[in-house]
């Protein structure tokens, strides 16, 4: 299952998007039980595409909370597709797609 949960709703032509991305967002400042620093590991880039066109993109620092939440809005309509994807500092990626409600 994807690490991304998307809720996208058409409100009079504006699509209200809410996403939650499951990710530890390690800051690199935390230590594990043995006192060793846990290396930083975080989502750097998030991109949202609707019907193949980029409608929103952003870059995160490690100061975005664990399991990042992101909300934005763009003009679109019910039934359109919305794909959200992320890439973290290790190069790992994930994406999820939904139909706008």
């Amino acid at each position: 299952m994807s690490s991304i949960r998307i809720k996208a709703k058409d409100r009079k032509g504006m699509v209200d998007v809410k996403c939650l991305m499951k990710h530890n967002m390690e800051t690199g400042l935390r230590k594990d039980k043995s006192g060793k620093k846990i290396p930083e590991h975080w989502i750097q880039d998030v991109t949202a595409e609707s019907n193949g066109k980029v409608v929103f993109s952003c870059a995160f620092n490690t100061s975005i909370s664990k399991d990042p939440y992101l909300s934005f809005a763009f003009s679109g309509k019910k039934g359109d597709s919305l794909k959200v994807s992320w890439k973290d500092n290790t190069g790992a990626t994930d994406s999820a797609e939904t139909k706008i409600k």
Partner: protein
Amino acid sequence: MDRRSVLKVAGVVSAAATALVAMPRLAMAAYTEKAFKSKAGADALQNAYGANATTPSDQVKLKAPDIAENGAVVPVEVQTDMEADSIAILIDGNPSPLALTADIPAGTKGLVKTRCRMGKTTNVTAVVKSGGKLYTASKEVKVTIGGCGG
């Protein structure tokens, strides 16, 4: 807007440098080491936008709590009715202040909501890039530790 943070952001540039150098607009906001690892807000803006002269504006709406319930999850919302190209969130007191930059293509609302980590009581600044200029709004968010719940 807290005056000190304006000064801090604005102080590094000379008065003459208020006009921004025209930058080729990036198609997407992308993580850059230079901007996100900067230790000062002004440097972060310089590295992200090629300029760091800012103007406080009531057109930039920043929603953040006066007292954070938990510094690990502070809800922050930036919204503007201006024609925004980009939105950024700066948390002054964090080791690297720039928390987020968002690219706002045409047809997308000048809005971003997220949850941030804050190490201590400090100013949160919302930055909106519009018409080649940077507009800001900021407020102090208190972070408390202790008691039973925190």
